[in-house]
């Protein structure tokens, strides 16, 4: 069972990481959420896979599920919601302000790569030259 569980978490994490590396904000949000599922389950599983144990104190029962990872993961889930909402709003705002949802934002248009800049300079120079000619 442990191997199966671990494999499932690994798959979720791999999908999350791949989506996180996509250049569009929406994919990043998806990736982040998937990754947080994987991380939450991993944290939770630190208390081991305890099937059918008591989570609540009951008279006469001595064997309990590990409460500490549960408490940690509970707040992590809620914080995850807030973080997702934050990133979503960020993506929304950027899409409206920049006009596209590329995660590289403004810089995407005039990315300072070696291939692009001289070209931009050349067009600018050409433009000023034509202006000079006109005047």
């Amino acid at each position, binding site marked *: *069972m*442990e191997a*199966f*569980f*671990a*494999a*499932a*978490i*690994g*798959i*979720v*994490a*791999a*999908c999350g*990481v*791949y*989506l996180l*590396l996509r*250049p*569009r*904000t929406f*994919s*990043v949000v*998806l990736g982040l959420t998937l990754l947080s*599922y*994987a991380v939450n*389950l*991993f944290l*939770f*599983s630190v208390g081991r896979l305890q*099937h059918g144990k008591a*989570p*609540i*104190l009951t008279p006469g029962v001595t064997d*309990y599920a*590990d*409460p*500490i990872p*549960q*408490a940690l993961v*509970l*707040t992590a*889930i*809620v914080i995850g919601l*807030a973080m*997702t909402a*934050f990133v979503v*709003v*960020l993506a*929304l705002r950027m*899409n*409206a302000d920049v006009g*596209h949802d590329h995660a*590289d*934002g403004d*810089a*995407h248009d005039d*990315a*300072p*790569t070696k291939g692009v800049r001289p070209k931009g300079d050349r067009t600018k120079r050409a433009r000023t030259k034509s202006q000079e000619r006109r005047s």
Partner: protein
Amino acid sequence: MSVLLVPLLPLLLGWIPLVLGRRGHVTTAWSAGLVAAASFAILLGVHAPAVFAGEVAFAWVRWAPSLGLDLAFRMDGLAFLFCLLVLGIGLLVILYAYFYLGDTKYHARFYAFLLVFMGAMLGVVTSEHMIGLVVFWEITSVSSFLLVGFNNDTEAARRGARRALGVTGLGGLCLLGGVIVIGHLVDSFELSVWIAQRSVIVANAWYPAGLVLILLGAFTKSAQMPFHFWLPGAMSAPTPASAYLHSATMVKAGVFLLVRLSPALGDTSLWFFIVVPVGLVTMMVAAYIAMFQHDIKGLLAYSTISHLGLITALFGISEPLAIVAGLLHIINHATFKASLFMAAGIVDHEVHTRDLRELGGLRRLMPVTTVLASIAAAAMAGVPLLNGFLSKEMAFQETLGLSRLGEMQWVAPFVVTLGGIFSVAYSLRFAWEAFFAEPKVQREHPPHDPPRWMQAPVFVLVGLCVVVGVMPAVAVGGLLEVVATSVLGDRMPEYHLAIYHGVNTALFMSIMAFAVGGLIFSWRRRVLDWQGGGILEPTAANAYHNFFGRVIRIGRVVTHQLHDHSLSRYSAVLFSLLLVVGSSPFWPHEARDALVLRTTTALQAAPVAFCSLLAFGAIATLVFHRRRIWALLFMGVSGLASALLFADYSAPDLALTQISVEFGTTVLILLALYYLPWKTPREPRAPARTMHAVIAVLCGTGIAALTYGVLTRPLESISDFYVATSKTHGGGTNIVNVILVDYRGTDTLGEITVLAIAALSITGMLSGFRARRPTVDSAGRAWSPDTHPHLLAVMARPLLSLVLLVAVFVLLRGHNLPGGGFIAALMTAVALILQFLANGYGFARARLRFDFVKVVAIGLALALFTGLGSLLFGQPFLTSNYGYFPIPLVGDVELATAMLFDLGVYLTVVGVIMIMAIRLGRIGGVEDAEPEPELVPAPAEPGEAG
């Protein structure tokens, strides 16, 4: 403990002028003055009698005992002297600044900075614990940065401030290093211990390293060469700040440190041969440069450097009489230099120039200022019957016969006399060219003396110069004795303060200084022509500039390499690094340990199904990630599968939380998706995709291996404690909830604070923001104008009260059964969001008129004050109490204070989620009062259309 109040009062009350900022300049000036006066009153009323009786008062506050850090203060003679200077001159400066700043817009800020600086400076001089001293030292650097850069709309001010901070900040780091080195030698950071363990310190092999570092700190602060260049640059500060920081206080911190530590570290050959040459060279060269300054503040700045050099040299000599002379010169220099700066400020204020080449003839126009400035300049030159003469004579005398110099004994008096000559020359030039020479520029509006109260501080300080000069023994004799005793202890020398000590070598040196200085002054045209602009550009400033220019360039290149504006690029870098670090446990020799097969459980049907569902959801999300609605739905499948896993593995609380959160997440993303592109285009670069896939697969493998490694190890848990004590200590049987609201309550408080911050950030990002609502979907079809589904609208309303009832129930039982604040809040939020979905924004908002920001505030306050409440009963923060209360018909009900805390959590989380949902729901532009559901974008509809 009143020692504590002297520095902390201005430091902690520095915000008062800011608060009063709108009430006008008079109020802010008075508030600053009163704060300083309160501290001054404590100093004079409480400490003066004790200090003059020879007592040393201490105050201790435990700060971080485990690290050996305390806030420890001492009030002895030396600290008292500096407090006197800092507070006395500080009060005069506040009075002066009121007139100088006039109707400046940012006066409140100036006084606030000034008070913070004052407090930090008092902290430096009263510190007993050396780490505390370093902390205050850094605060003086930062606050002086703010003061120097006060006129931050000019490039000169910004550059001067940066340079001052750069040099003194680096010096502060050196000082910290030195203090740590010496502190480790004697295993203590207390000054008293250092002094007592002097012999241990100076014998240690680490002593030179520690000493050099500490001296670097002192030299940078006191503008000793070659670190002097920041001080002339800092002259772009408003003149009250210059008069305060750059004459009387901050630059004195360096020499203070020298004399403070001289009983512990001083009087060794190393100390002598570093400190004395630096001081002497600084004294002579700075005085030489001062002669050629045209800016009167620049002249005064170099003069300050020169005088600090003299004091440094005296403390380097370490003979008891030299230390007495240095202390006396600190007092004298503070009085005459502060008054000269103030006079320079008056001239600048009235004439609007500080350039000696344009000034002149002010004698007739500003007679009072002329007299005061001339007396102060005479004191600076060391004219008899003024205070500067006394300490200069003593200093000259002390440079004679330095046995450590051997054959070279003549060098010290020679250099000092040269410095004396130059200082006579620049003092004459200052007074003559500004006030007495014929005016070089005719002015339309002749300047005049400033208001009487603006001159009052100058008058007080110049008066002190004269009184000390004429009756030294009466005026400062007692104070000097107390101060010197606190430094020298039983090495206290015999001396007496008098105006005339008979014919001795020092007198000849003085006469020589006046004669040659006067000569240079009368030849000043020729000297100025000869010197031209040659050495005036300080080379150290260039070196500094080049160094920092290079650092910034390198930083920019490195940043640009790592941070090229591509999120996926540096995410990839981060994950690759993570892979390297995270895979270290699996490296060969440890791998056997990590992956060896241990006890495993057999496959069970339910969890296998849930795990498969989880993985299926994730893979489907990935496959469909270009069609965003589908991806979102599949992501929800994964989320629900993880809730099922939680439920199956004995974590009902987690399952409940995950289900509610899943709903919230999906709704929020759907809301946002309405305004985002619906499809993700295929990005062009295939090689990057392959690389990302490799990274992702490796990360997944790593996490799977890690999980497997953890799961197959025997469990050693600390949970037994919580299981055993949850009921008896926390009063609840739901251990998870008891941990959240009781054992780890402070964490939970922090977490709901983070939630509130996220909600506020979202509010900020969306405030005033209106997105264009799309009219067609991605396929170009127009949105259907359908109203909200009738059945849902009708069902949602009665559902609300039911869900709310359940939420209250879940909240109340949370301490003992699955539930609690988080889960109840998520349920409530889900029910409320459902109303928006079913009936439209306008309908729901018209009926739900809460200000959810207030709800969050109330929730946070409730949680915080529940925690603080336990302090009232003398118990630690957030200690829970509980008891059983009989309620008729219901029976015994257990109420714990943790429930109040949980209620705070509940309110915060409900508020946060509702803020997010409502904010997102209305960005398409919905009028709050509009009850027409048709106008509202139904967030659920995109799902159907896509």
